[in-house]
């Protein structure tokens, strides 16, 4: 019984600790939400004080001044395009690598997966982009994202393909499937959970990225949300209400995605780290 009391005190301390940590984590986010609703005079500095009057007009101002509609569409286009190409090509590669397992394909798999580690040489990449006439082009940015995301995607999907029994392939061949039908009609539908995970992660990473556009997109009408928010920050340095509103609009799509697809995001990012 003595242990029970000691245990209760320990419980209380642990609970308080958890609440404190959550508070530290959520505080900046609360700050941004509060300040995005303040009038300009109130938001010279970011404080935790609640706004005197809720100013939803900040969002309209930001959308207009920050040219957010255009950059929102750009972001959707880049992230969407890169995600589709990465997943379709990446899943096909992962499938072949996982099924063939010869020495050559094993080496090729290692070569691709090494891409998760190797750093980008932006300087010489610029030379390559210029040579291919991809500099300052939307297609160029999408292909860059495909190149960057492909290694992780192949790594992720490789594990899932390995879990689909080969006997299935044999049965399909006996039924008269050719290689294309086997993959697109039989294997790919079975990979759906993994593909959804991959798509969510790829979209998220690409949406949040801003270094590639920083180097390779000069014209502001091609900028994605992240680069637009950075630029906006430079222009309206003291109008924290507007900056916060801009930040919220930039983060909203990924936060909504996180809340809806939490299972896929967490599952995908922890895949490979945990056995089973």
């Amino acid at each position, binding site marked *: 019984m003595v242990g029970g009391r000691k245990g209760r005190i320990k419980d209380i301390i*642990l*609970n308080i600790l*958890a609440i404190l*940590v*959550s508070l530290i*984590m959520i505080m*900046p986010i609360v700050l941004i939400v509060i300040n995005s609703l303040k009038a300009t005079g109130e938001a010279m*500095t*970011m404080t935790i004080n609640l706004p005197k009057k809720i100013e939803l007009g900040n969002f309209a101002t930001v959308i207009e001044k920050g040219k957010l509609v255009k950059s929102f569409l750009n972001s959707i286009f880049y992230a969407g395009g890169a995600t589709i*190409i*990465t997943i379709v*090509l990446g899943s*096909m*590669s992962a499938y072949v690598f996982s*099924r063939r397992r010869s020495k050559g394909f094993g080496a090729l798999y*290692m*070569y*691709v*997966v*090494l*891409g*998760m*580690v*190797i*750093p980008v*040489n932006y*300087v*010489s*990449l*610029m030379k*390559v982009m210029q040579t291919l006439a991809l500099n300052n082009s939307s297609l160029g940015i999408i292909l860059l994202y*495909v*190149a960057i995301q492909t*290694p992780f995607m192949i*790594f992720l999907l*490789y*594990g899932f393909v390995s879990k689909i029994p080969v006997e299935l*392939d044999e049965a399909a*061949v006996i039924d008269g499937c050719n*290689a294309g039908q086997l993959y697109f009609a039989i294997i790919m539908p079975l990979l759906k959970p993994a593909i959804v995970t991959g798509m969510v992660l790829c979209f998220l990473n690409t*949406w*949040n990225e*801003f*270094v590639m556009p920083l180097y390779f997109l000069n014209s502001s009408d091609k900028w994605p949300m992240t680069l637009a*928010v*950075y630029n906006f920050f430079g222009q309206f340095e003291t109008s924290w209400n507007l*900056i916060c509103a801009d*930040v919220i609009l*930039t*983060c909203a799509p*990924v936060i909504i*995605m996180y809340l809806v697809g*939490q299972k896929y995001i*967490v599952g995908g*990012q922890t895949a*490979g*780290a*945990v*056995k*089973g």
Partner: protein
Amino acid sequence: MNKKKLYPWYFAIGSVFIYSLLSVIPGIIGIGYSFTDWSAYSSELHFVGFDNFKTVFSGDNDYLRYISNTLLFTLVTTICKTSFGLLLALLLCSKVRFKNFHRGVLYLPSVIPILVTGLTFTSILNPKIGFLNTFLRAIGLDALAKQWLVDPKMAFPSVMTVDIWRGTGYIMTMLIAGIMAIPSVYYEAASIDGASGFKKFVHITLPMLRQTLAVTIVLNVIYGLKIFDMVYALTNGGPGHRTEVMYTAVFKMFSKGLYAEGTTISSVMFVFMIIIGFFMVKILTKDEVVE
């Protein structure tokens, strides 16, 4: 069954081609360019041998500091994220209430663009009017209200702390997944044998988490060596290059048209990462070999 026909090589060609063209080839030709005087100011290229490498490693300028800063950043953030992540994972696997809420909140910073986190913290850490110092003064801890990103001594620790704030939840989430995968019979058996909580941690949790810990450390190291967004948004390398890391330095050289220096630093990193990357990828892909 004919594997060659059933799993044709050309299925793999698309992604391998794009990856090679825009990720591997720039890295390799970058090594070539680092032996030249490539810059934005002249259209001619001259072979200069190891001159660029001598400039980088001579210690006459700040290049070595950018490299050591990057290594320090990687070391400190990896250690802190892993240990805090582990402690929080244990906390949120114990009998705490609203576990899922806490887990969700801690993971949240990982889905927000790093750039946005950085920008937000430039306001929070503002010495005069920032939220942190205002708060510290309000509760009477004036002495703790430092010149976070401005003081040359405080700037780099501040940058690292913000990054630890951002990245710990992600590591914690991976470790929670690892802890949950440990079969509960081990703990039950240990309880019957009268093992204490600490003993269970040392003899069951830690050994069973070895692979997960290895992976999180690898991911942290890769992230740390490539750090750019966070530093760029918080300090852009300042004050006086105190927080400059390799990638922010490369971006500055790129903007100034000093392509040869930029590509030299990138190439040093490229070669270094390929060497250690090989071992890291072995750790990352270890599971599949077992399966």
